[in-house]
């Protein structure tokens, strides 16, 4: 027997050689060592048990919760309603379908999310969608077109006529936590079995035969990797992958691998395979959408195929399973060929594993990969989103919004919003370029803007752009900026004057008023209004005073109508900012927010009925329970007659007055509006509307700096027009004339009844019994006789 090799045995026997001692001494020696080992073993067991308990608690804390993931809340736009007469080009329906993830399949629609367009029709297979309180099941429709106008709508390949089709709301933006993970949680029952089988086959074939760690898998992976001398196979089980993604970090380290294995074993001890698989399917990273990650198979199904996961075909299941290994490398958005090669490889493996028939295999191979158009832009309306969050702040904390997966339905019209953003992007730089000599070159801040649109009848906020770049400044000029309204205040003065129940002095659009300088004492100081052109215009009609935005004449009208009465009118219309009954009120020298002003203007297209602005319609939990419904709120505040008469005057502002460039630019249709420019050109405004839409544009500097000679008509009006002519290219109807209002042809200059001797006439609106009685040629303008 060879002698004991001290060197080979190492440290364990280094001190004393047992052979040199007696038997009992050696027994004692071994016994001593056995005791040491036992203590060491116990210590290892205690520490190990403690560590395992620690990991167990970690698992309990995170994994055993009913809500495993923070689900971002999602803000949705309003739905799109289609019916005969809708212009699909004006509404950019194809663009909307692309944004909603529908796929242009060319000829025949077969599955949810498909669309196909032709010269005389547009076929759409509608998605399923959970509306607040209503689960909508998608079906195929055909929209028959005459040009770009919907002529008829039917169920696809059926004769059943449809009077209305609703396209689901778009996601305006998700509200993420710091992890920025976009995820739709599904149960195992919702996932197609082919997808489950494909994932198990590719990622962990022995999933149902191991207990968290798979030694056989590890050895097999090792051999496979050694054979080709590179990493081609991993030995991690699905459970380990879940642990790595859910609890740990992706950095490679020995400690992480140990923890991964221990935790995988621990999870498998306490949870069923079904629970683990479901968690894996919801956790797994499957790609990148801008700055947020696409997590879980359900979100990935929406991202890559614009479908619910339960609607995936066999070929799509194979591709999705194949993406897990390297989502960005095999993404169909990156390369259709690469994605196809990966999918076909998975299909081959599935056929080898007898997970499909030969016929299914052939059909799946032949299926083209047709992902929807990729929408990188994650947030569309950031200022509106902030406003919505602000509206919800009292009800839901930021933490709730980031974690609970709420679905917030809003009034935003995506077509209007995108048009508004495009208008701002184009018009403000154009203005800076054209007015470069008037704008201060060394001004610290950029020219800023607000563009906001509402539906006057119900107060729905349709679009909101609170600045030219949200990335540079999150200050929302539509809702947070307090600015002087300038001449955009004038319609409320004239409304007061033309309403006999409000005005101290009876006036009509044909009344004459003196546009000649005057002074009045206000607050201990002399106040004297000036016209924009610095001139006086003598006796003018009320119409001319408003159309030309004459400050002196308007100030006289305000004082004649009563300043307190004007304040009351503004209040009734919805102006909530502080107002003082002083003469300068007529020129809009107080401050309002643009949102406040646009809401107040809604009374004009709405016949005197005030509609409160509304941005949110419903808040729904991820399970579909409606937490909150917000209703429109309307109330009659003004008699319809005077409102119509004022609106009629405001139509003249566009047709002949300070906003006549709208017509010069070729915009047709019924539209009314008012320009506004504040003193020293600090604010440029335009508020314009037709019976269906009301929009406000403001341009200025945040620090109230001057914009030399840049008026509302020059700066704000083109922005408004750019937006309005896209979203409302033609107004379908005139403002409805209420009972008690008559149209009378009068002379434009004197306001007297039209005669041949007065060729410049106009159809003027009057409240019944207030129309002029004198003919124009009988009238003599006694400039000293006016009472105003």
């Amino acid at each position: 027997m060879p002698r004991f090799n001290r060197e080979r045995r190492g440290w364990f026997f280094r001190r004393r050689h047992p052979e040199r001692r007696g038997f009992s001494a050696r027994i004692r020696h071994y016994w001593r060592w056995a005791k040491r080992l036992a203590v060491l073993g116990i210590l290892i067991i205690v520490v190990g048990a403690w560590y395992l308990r620690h990991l167990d608690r970690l698992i309990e804390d995170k994994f055993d919760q009913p809500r495993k993931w923070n689900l971002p809340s999602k803000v949705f736009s309003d739905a799109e309603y289609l019916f005969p007469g809708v212009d699909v080009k004006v509404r950019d329906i194809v663009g909307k379908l692309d944004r909603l993830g529908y796929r242009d399949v060319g000829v025949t629609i077969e599955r949810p999310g498909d669309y196909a367009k032709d010269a005389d029709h547009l076929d759409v297979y509608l998605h399923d969608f959970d509306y607040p309180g209503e689960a909508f099941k998608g079906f195929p429709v055909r929209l028959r077109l005459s040009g770009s106008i919907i002529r008829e709508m039917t169920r696809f390949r059926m004769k059943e006529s449809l009077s209305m089709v609703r396209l689901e709301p778009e996601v305006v933006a998700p509200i993420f936590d710091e992890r920025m993970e976009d995820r739709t949680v599904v149960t195992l029952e919702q996932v197609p079995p082919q997808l489950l089988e494909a994932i198990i086959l590719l990622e962990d074939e022995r999933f149902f035969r191991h207990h968290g760690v798979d030694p056989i898998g590890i050895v097999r992976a090792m051999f496979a990797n050694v054979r080709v001398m590179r990493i081609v196979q991993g030995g991690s089980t699905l459970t380990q992958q879940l642990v790595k993604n859910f609890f740990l970090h992706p950095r490679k380290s020995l400690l992480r691998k140990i923890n991964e294995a221990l935790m995988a074993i621990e999870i498998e001890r306490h949870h069923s395979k079904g629970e683990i698989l479901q968690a894996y399917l919801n956790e797994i990273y499957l790609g990148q959408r801008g700055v947020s990650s696409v997590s879980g198979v359900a979100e990935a199904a929406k991202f890559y195929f614009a479908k619910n996961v339960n609607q995936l075909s066999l070929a799509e299941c194979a591709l999705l399973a194949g993406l897990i290994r390297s989502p960005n490398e095999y993404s169909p958005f990156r390369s259709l060929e690469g994605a196809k090669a990966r999918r076909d490889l998975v299909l081959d493996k599935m056929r080898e594993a007898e997970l499909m028939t030969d016929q299914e295999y052939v059909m799946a191979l032949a299926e083209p990969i047709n992902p929807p158009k990729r929408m990188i832009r994650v947030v569309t309306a950031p200022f509106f989103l902030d406003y919505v969050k602000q509206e919800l702040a009292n009800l839901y904390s930021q933490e709730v919004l980031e974690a609970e997966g709420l679905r917030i339905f809003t009034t935003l019209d995506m077509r209007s919003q995108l048009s508004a953003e495009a208008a701002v992007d184009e018009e403000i730089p154009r203005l800076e370029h054209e007015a470069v000599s008037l704008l201060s070159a060394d001004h610290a801040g950029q020219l800023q803007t607000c563009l906001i649109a509402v539906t006057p009848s119900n107060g729905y906020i349709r679009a909101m752009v609170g600045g030219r770049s949200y990335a540079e400044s999150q200050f929302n000029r539509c809702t947070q900026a307090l600015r002087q309204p300038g001449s955009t205040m004038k319609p409320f003065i004239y409304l007061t004057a033309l309403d006999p129940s409000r005005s101290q002095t009876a006036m009509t659009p044909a009344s004459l008023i003196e546009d000649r300088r005057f002074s009045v004492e206000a607050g201990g100081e002399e106040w004297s209004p000036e016209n924009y052109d610095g001139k006086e215009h003598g006796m003018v009609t009320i119409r001319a005073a408003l159309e030309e935005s004459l400050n002196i004449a308007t100030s006289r009208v305000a004082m004649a109508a009563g300043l307190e009465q004007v304040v009351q009118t503004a209040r009734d219309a919805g102006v909530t900012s502080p107002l003082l009954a002083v003469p300068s009120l007529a020129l809009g020298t107080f401050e309002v927010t643009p949102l406040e002003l646009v809401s107040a203007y809604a009374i004009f297209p709405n016949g005197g009925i005030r509609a409160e602005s509304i941005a949110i319609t419903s808040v729904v939990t991820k399970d579909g329970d409606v937490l909150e419904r917000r209703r429109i709120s309307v109330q009659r505040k003004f008699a319809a007659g005077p409102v119509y008469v004022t609106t009629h005057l405001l139509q003249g502002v566009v047709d002949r007055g300070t906003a006549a460039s709208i017509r010069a630019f070729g915009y047709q249709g019924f539209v009314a509006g008012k320009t506004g420019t504040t003193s020293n050109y600090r604010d440029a405004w335009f508020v314009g509307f037709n019976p269906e839409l009301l929009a406000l544009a403001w341009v200025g500097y945040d620090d109230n700096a001057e914009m030399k000679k840049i008026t509302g008509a020059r700066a704000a009006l083109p922005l408004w027009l750019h937006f309005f002519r896209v979203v409302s290219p033609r107004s379908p109807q005139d403002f409805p004339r209420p009972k008690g209002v008559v149209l009378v042809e009068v002379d434009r200059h004197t306001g007297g009844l039209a005669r041949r001797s007065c060729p410049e006439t106009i159809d003027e609106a009057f409240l019944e019994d207030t129309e002029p009685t004198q003919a124009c040629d009988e009238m003599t303008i006694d400039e000293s006789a006016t009472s105003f």
Partner: protein
Amino acid sequence: MRRNDHRRICNIILKWFLMLVVAMTMVHCAKVSRPGHKRLPSEERKDIPPSERSEEQLPTTPDASTPRRVASQQLVDKGIASLDAGNTAAAMESFQEAINIDATNGIAYYYLARSTYEGGQGSSALGFLDQAEALLGDDPAWLEEIVALRDEIAGEGESLE
């Protein structure tokens, strides 16, 4: 011989220790049997039921000429069915949608007023009646309905006072 004894004892001790470690590891890794360990989950799915529609005869519209109005009226009809079924919230949702499609549909405002009133918000309902009156005021039959509902709401308000 003595040397062999020593080695045997040493081996036995080591063997026992290793067996202890292996046994503990096995106990630790032992799988707790639970239901749900099956190859694939159940595939039972619940179909979403079709939305309920009332077959009841619904009021006719005075101005059903434009497609926009027809589309809007479809939602009004749906809302009326919900109202008849006692689902005020769903009815209000439908009427609001109907107004969203066609802001000049006075009937939608009338029924929104009615459902809002039945939902216990009489003061809000009056605003919708204002709008309904502005849009339907030319039709004596509708005007009568509007006035009657307004009187009903006003009466309710007075009795509460």
